[in-house]
């Protein structure tokens, strides 16, 4: 009788990589729709650019490595990376930045480390950090939510802006858009606190509606819904997501209870920026996360604590990308020190 030996987590699944990745991409749709509704059509254009760049880069590098291009493209992992980059960056980012980011994600972060399954860092988040570090100005200009902007960013205006077209016919689209970029709610909140305002004063601004940022609450809610569908479909397991959300809730709850004037409420932390996108779609990347059950909880908790710490005390308003990359570095150690009990052995090793 042959025993099937599999690497941890010792759960057999009928899902192949391409199916998993396909479902992840499909579950992103509610969030994308919410983002398009609140922040205009730019996101769709970004997805288009990112998907084309990522798939071409993947095909080119597989050709260089003498491997099957068809297999690599059909596993859909480059597609998911592309969509994650596209939804993470500001919707009206110039096209060449998206291209640089996608190229970096696929070529440097993924394939120079050995391709799918071997990369240490999450490609999408590494690309985001690359862009944020290299082009801080463009990366902190988010589109104003449609409720605050006079007119929504149409698909033509988005194209004109992203591709930096300046023909006479399109100029008025660009100008119409230029007036409507602004800092994200988390950014506004951070700037206000650093200028000596209290958190309740900052929340009076028009980018907030009482508790969270205008639009952002619904975007995060949509990603949460997509994430719950993924849980239901058993595409991901709950440990990492719960670890992140619990850690953010506990940390920000303690901070808010101790000093509500200088801390964001748990609500603002959970439903702003990329929290839900990170918790369900980014941190749950099976390649770069810890593999055991307890390890995943710890991995998630590390991300959650880091998000809170960087948002509250660090230099960047949203910390998802940095938190994920730092936790990626910890993942091998977590796997080393937290090993599941082997069948027939005592607890411990």
């Amino acid at each position, binding site marked *: 009788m042959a025993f099937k030996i599999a690497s941890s987590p010792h759960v057999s699944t009928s899902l192949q990589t391409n199916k998993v990745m396909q479902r992840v991409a499909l579950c992103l749709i509610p969030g994308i729709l919410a983002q398009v509704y609140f922040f205009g059509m730019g996101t769709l254009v970004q997805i288009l650019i990112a998907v084309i760049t990522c798939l071409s880069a993947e095909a080119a590098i597989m050709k260089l490595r003498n491997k099957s291009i068809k297999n690599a493209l059909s596993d859909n992992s480059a597609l998911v990376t592309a969509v994650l980059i596209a939804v993470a960056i500001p919707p009206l980012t110039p096209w060449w930045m998206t291209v*640089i980011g996608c190229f970096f994600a696929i070529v*440097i972060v993924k394939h*120079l480390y050995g391709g799918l399954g071997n990369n240490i860092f999450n490609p999408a988040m590494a690309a985001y950090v*690359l862009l944020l*570090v*290299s*082009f*801080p*100005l*463009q990366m902190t200009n988010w589109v104003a939510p449609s409720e605050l902007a006079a007119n929504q960013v149409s698909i033509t205006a988005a194209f004109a802006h992203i591709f930096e077209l300046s023909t006479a016919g399109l100029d008025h689209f660009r100008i119409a858009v230029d007036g409507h970029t602004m800092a994200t709610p988390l950014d506004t909140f951070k700037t206000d606190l650093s200028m000596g305002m209290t958190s309740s004063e900052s929340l009076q601004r028009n980018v907030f509606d009482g508790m969270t940022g205008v639009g952002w609450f619904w975007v995060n809610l949509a990603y949460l819904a997509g994430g719950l569908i993924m849980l239901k479909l058993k595409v991901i397991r709950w440990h990492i997501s719960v670890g992140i959300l619990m850690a953010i809730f506990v940390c920000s709850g303690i901070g808010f209870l101790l000093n509500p004037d200088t801390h964001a409420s748990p609500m603002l932390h959970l439903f702003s920026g990329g929290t839900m996108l990170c918790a369900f779609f980014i941190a749950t990347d099976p390649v770069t996360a810890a593999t055991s059950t307890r390890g995943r909880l710890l991995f998630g908790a590390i991300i959650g604590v880091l998000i809170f710490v960087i948002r509250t005390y660090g230099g960047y308003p949203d910390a998802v990308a940095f938190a994920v990359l730092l936790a990626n570095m910890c993942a091998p150690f977590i796997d080393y020190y937290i090993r599941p009990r082997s069948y027939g052995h005592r607890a411990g090793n």
Partner: protein
Amino acid sequence: MTNYREIAWQGLWKNNPGLVQLLGLCPLLAVTATVTNALGLGLATLIVLVGSNILVSLVREYVPKEIRIPVFVMIIAALVTCVQLLINAYAYGLYLSLGIFLPLIVTNCVIIGRAEAFASRNNVTSAAFDGLMMGVGFTAILVVLGGMRELLGQGTLFDGAELLLGDWASSLTIQVFNVDTPFLLAMLPPGAFIAMGLLIALKNVIDDKIEQRKPQQEAEIIARARITKVG
């Protein structure tokens, strides 16, 4: 060990201090944001390396083995101080932009490494030639890395060359393409690490190609101390 061709080949390519021995990574990564800085630091290192190799080779018979390292460091420190004062006097702008990395040449592992591994065991002429070739190899890597980073980062080459070469050199600056927004990653240390990794990969590819082209010809192996400590 007085085969000059072999010494040149070792210093420039086969045992290149930047690409193969990975010595002196600290200045290599820190000051190569522009070609000018890279060239300035490379030349300063080159001068110190030749000088220290000559001096160490001259005194090698008289220095007791037990205290040779402190003596070598003293020699190198004296030379670095001279070079630093010279640059301070004649290229003040470069002196400012190189900053702490100029005095830090003292701790550059290439120099102490060559003093210990080569100059203390060979005669003056071959030690001087080895210092020259190692220095040229190191400078070449610095300049290539600086060129890559400057080109990617701000789209220019030889920006600020007048700091090194005098006012006439300001016309050397080449604006290869115009960028509205500098690509900061290339200018920051992570960009240097990535570019360095790509250069090493490129060298390995070239070596593989050469190896494939002439499989029957065995290269003569020279036993030499390889120092792999990174400094």
